[in-house]
């Protein structure tokens, strides 16, 4: 009888299969949607029948593609995942319709396959069984068990201290699901290090000036610009894909590029003017440029008159900031300052003083970015072709859920009224609020950390670890065993972006657009998508109503329906571009414009910053210079890596597996350093790097600085390719210069010296 049942089951199953196979052939003409389900069924039958399956013949001969958008960096380029004849993921190619990448992914996006194939991935839920000493002593657990532990602990914290004593740190698409989970739970402490550790000051400065932030991707109209000014921004080494592509277009069209950098960056090598500035003096240069543009009458008079406020105050303010004054500070020749200002004028309004992205440098960053914004305003580039276009984004409604409760307190309460202008949560602020603080009432007791390696991301590693030690619970959701996972109580392995559904990508751009991410394959190992983890946790904590859907496809289908598309369509096209509805891409003559500032105008004199008790217009502050024998620690990026998250990716480590410390030949001679010599770096606080780093002697770096690429020097042995390769700049960033306006963590005030050998008595 049993046997009969079994065989009939099998028959049923094979009937189902053949039915699907027929469907597949029919649907094949319609789109990849049918292909995928047929594929999955074929794969499933393969595994059920031990591989000896006739389904082989039903596999499509040609490799086929599924839509995705990249998760290797924040640019989120849309692309297609292609598989080979064996049904294995082979390559990822950009989607031609996507404005972020124009069909061309960057090396990291192309190498994204390595995230999937990395055998060092987190493979199963882990629960800590011994002390929080950073050593990984985990035991493997089932999802049910691991999630039970998390849910119980969170509930306990809620009962004892209140839901507001929990926080989320996130970078990437998981943030939305865990964010909703936390909001439903009753906490508003949701922070991304991409704000206070990266672009925050820029947003605050541009909101203060133009009443609008820049967001991502920045609406810089580089492809049509005639003059691009990069201040410490190393386009081409940071692969902000669309911008790098447009910079190349601009080079083709003969645009003038002006680069300000103590290092001869790749962008500097493409520039007509390279200003090898003395580190930490950019503000003086910016003020001198403003001076030159105002006092030579080089500003866009009509624009300034029509759209700005505070011009006279500004003019008076910069009266003494002459190029000669700036020369003494920046070491840049006064005639070069004037000449570059004239080049900007010549291109105006098709000129971009690029705001950069990682701008938390010296603690006066909001003011420096204000100077950048002012310069753009004077040259009339905001809202103009070749300057900044007016981006548009489509509103995609949130899948219906009950309203979130209002949290009793947030991290802001721990800040004592500081940083009121921060428009997003400060990761560093949340970290601070974790260390016991009487003003907060209760300190934060639990962290959920998703896709961000806080140990390397937040400056001042010691403080981060101190905060972690005060936690009752830390849950890390990641694909890779990063340093942060070593401190976790529960580790939840997320599947990579190639193996999961996710929210639609909804970014602003020249045209509103959306992109779909769908799984190309079943997740490897016992890994799960973030949305699934968040939903299961919610259900275990009685918050299931906030995730009231069966499959994630239902959410997407519902959302797509609201904006006049469908999942089937998106599976077929990957990216959908909508017509603009907000009006033209640039300001037009006689267009009445109300800026989102107090005055409704572009504020050269910022009333909002003045109201908080800070300088309404930027002033120059002198920053520390390195003591004898020490060098400015400058750090940056390499085009083939996204911070630390790619440093174990097999495809990308193949391109670059360690960083080097760049040293000027004169310095090398003085210190008897040889190319390739492995040395340690020590900072002003006596912190010595965990690992040695090889010297690269190069003329590309100024004599008073060294340069290292961020994201290396991983200390987690589970990262077999990245462990001990190069050094971590984060480790050396122990002096943090806080921006008083918005709480950004300035990281460029650190100085290092060379140590040929590590002495045992040195504690790091």
């Amino acid at each position, binding site marked *: 009888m049993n046997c009969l049942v079994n065989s009939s089951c099998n028959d049923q199953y094979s009937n189902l299969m053949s039915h699907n196979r027929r469907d597949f052939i029919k649907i094949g003409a319609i789109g990849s949607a049918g292909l995928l389900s047929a594929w999955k069924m074929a794969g499933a039958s393969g595994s059920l029948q031990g591989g000896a399956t006739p389904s082989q013949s039903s596999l499509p001969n040609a490799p086929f593609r599924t839509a995705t958008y990249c998760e290797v960096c924040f640019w989120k380029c849309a692309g297609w995942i292609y598989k080979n004849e064996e049904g294995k993921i082979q390559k990822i190619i950009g989607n031609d319709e996507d404005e972020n990448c124009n069909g061309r992914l960057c090396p990291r996006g192309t190498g994204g396959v390595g995230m999937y194939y990395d055998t060092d991935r987190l493979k199963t839920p882990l629960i800590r069984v011994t002390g929080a000493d950073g050593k990984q002593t985990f035991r493997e657990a089932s999802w049910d068990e691991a999630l039970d532990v998390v849910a119980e602990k969170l509930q306990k914290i809620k009962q004892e201290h209140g839901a507001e004593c929990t926080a989320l740190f996130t970078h990437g698409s998981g943030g939305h699901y865990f964010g909703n989970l936390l909001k439903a739970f009753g906490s508003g402490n949701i922070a991304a290090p991409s704000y206070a550790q990266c672009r925050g000051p820029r947003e605050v400065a541009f909101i203060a000036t133009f009443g609008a932030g820049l967001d991502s991707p920045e609406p810089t109209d580089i492809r049509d610009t005639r003059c691009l000014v990069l201040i410490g921004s190393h386009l081409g080494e940071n692969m902000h894909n669309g911008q790098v592509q447009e910079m190349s277009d601009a080079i083709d069209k003969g645009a003038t590029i002006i680069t300000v950098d103590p290092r001869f960056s790749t962008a500097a090598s493409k520039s007509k003017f390279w200003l090898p500035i003395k580190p930490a003096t950019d503000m003086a240069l910016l003020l001198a440029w403003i001076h030159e543009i105002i006092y030579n009458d080089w500003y866009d008079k009509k624009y300034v008159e029509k759209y700005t406020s505070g011009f006279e105050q500004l003019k008076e303010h910069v009266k003494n900031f002459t190029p000669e004054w700036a020369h003494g500070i920046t070491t840049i020749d006064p005639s070069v300052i004037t000449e570059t200002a004239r080049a900007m004028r010549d291109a105006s309004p098709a000129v971009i003083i690029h705001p950069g992205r990682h701008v938390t440098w010296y603690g006066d960053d909001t003011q420096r970015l204000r100077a950048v914004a002012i310069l753009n305003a004077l040259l009339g580039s905001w809202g103009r072709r070749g300057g900044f276009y007016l981006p548009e984004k489509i509103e995609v409604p949130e899948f219906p859920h009950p309203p979130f409760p209002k949290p009793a307190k947030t991290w802001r309460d721990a800040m004592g009224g500081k940083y009121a202008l921060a428009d997003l949560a400060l990761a560093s602020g949340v970290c601070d609020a974790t260390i016991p603080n009487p003003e907060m009432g209760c300190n934060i007791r639990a962290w959920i950390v998703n896709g961000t390696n806080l140990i390397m991301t937040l400056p001042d590693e010691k403080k981060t670890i101190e905060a972690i030690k005060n936690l009752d619970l830390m849950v890390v959701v990641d694909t890779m065993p990063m340093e942060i996972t070593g401190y976790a109580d529960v580790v939840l392995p997320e599947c990579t972006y190639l193996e999961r559904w996710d929210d639609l990508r909804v970014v602003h751009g020249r045209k509103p657009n959306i992109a779909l991410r769908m799984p190309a394959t079943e997740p490897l190992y016992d890994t799960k998508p973030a949305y699934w983890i968040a939903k299961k946790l919610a259900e275990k904590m009685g918050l299931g109503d906030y995730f009231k859907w069966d499959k994630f496809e239902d959410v997407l289908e519902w959302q797509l329906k609201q904006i006049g598309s469908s999942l089937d369509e998106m599976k077929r096209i990957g990216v959908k571009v909508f017509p603009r509805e907000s009006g033209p891409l640039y300001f037009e003559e006689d267009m009445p414009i109300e800026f989102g500032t107090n005055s409704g105008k572009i504020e050269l004199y910022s009333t909002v910053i003045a109201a908080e008790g800070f300088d309404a217009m930027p002033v120059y502050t002198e920053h520390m210079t390195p003591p004898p024998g020490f060098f400015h620690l400058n750090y940056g990026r390499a085009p083939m890596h996204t911070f630390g998250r790619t440093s174990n990716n097999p495809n990308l480590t*193949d*391109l670059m597996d360690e960083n080097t410390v760049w040293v000027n*030949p004169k310095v090398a001679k003085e210190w008897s350093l040889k190319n390739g010599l492995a040395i340690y770096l020590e900072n002003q606080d006596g912190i010595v790097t965990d690992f040695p780093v090889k010297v690269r*002697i*190069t*003329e*590309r770096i100024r004599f008073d600085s060294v340069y290292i690429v961020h994201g290396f020097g991983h200390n987690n042995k589970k990262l077999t390719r990245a462990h001990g390769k190069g050094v971590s700049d984060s480790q050396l960033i122990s002096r943090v210069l806080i921006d008083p306006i918005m709480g950004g963590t300035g990281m460029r005030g650190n100085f290092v010296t060379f140590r040929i050998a590590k002495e045992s008595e040195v504690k790091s």
Partner: protein
Amino acid sequence: MREEIITSGRLNPHIDPHLEIWHWQIPLYLFLGGLAAGILFFAALYTIMGKEEKYPGAVRRAPILVPFLLVIGLFALFLDLKHKLFFWQLYTTIKFMSPMSWGAWTLMAITPLSMIWAALHIRDFFPKWDWKYDILKDIETEILKYKVHLAWVMIVLSVILGIYTGILLSAFNARPLWNTSILGPLFLTSGLSAGAATILLFSKSAKERRLFAKIDILLIVIELFLITHLFMGFLASTSVQIDAANLFLGGPYTAPFWIFVVVLGMLIPAGLEIMELRHVKIPHVIPVVLVLFGSLMFRFIIVYAGQMSRWLY
């Protein structure tokens, strides 16, 4: 300062940081091939000259080694192949521009020839040898009739083989150290010198030994002349070839080359042979071993150093 670096990619094993595609197998094969060519050359030469009886060491005894040398050499060559199962592809085509193809075909011809030659003279070592089957005996008689013709074929093939060992390398203009036409004659001379030295070991008569000692000295002098010429040529050439020469003139291969190849492998054995000719009592095995050692080292050093010499980066 000029800085030229490969920033990414190019970690190809055996290619980076510098070429190391050929290891011990190739120089060993070149040495054995050269040595075999040297021995066969003299065997054929004296057969043609009708002096077989006068110089039996050269014609009859030393060639017994050759099949072994060639088989070991071929085996080394086979070991060097990375796609071994396809080695037969060598014999599906003749590529006139490819020294490797020339070599493969030459070896294909000369190895059986050397075996026949050794078989013809097997009774020098085993006087009671009997071929047992009539057909083999008939073949032997038949071949013996054409021994001089055989020698003519052998002398041509041995010269090709000897030169080929050098041309294999000199055909690569990508490696400036190898890219000199002197390498062909130089390797031929070195092979002949090694052959002459080996014959000394097999020779039983003092007269024959004196002749081959003289020949060897002459060959060493020619070699020294060619080496001088080699360096003069390099130093008068382009910067990459000057760089190549500098590998031996102050570079990493200076000591091994001048000490092992020139002093131990040429000057000292030549000196010892001169002393021997002047009737100073010296065990004649010493110069022979030194010449063979120098000849082997020469090929090792040229093969390894050549892979370090390049155009770019």
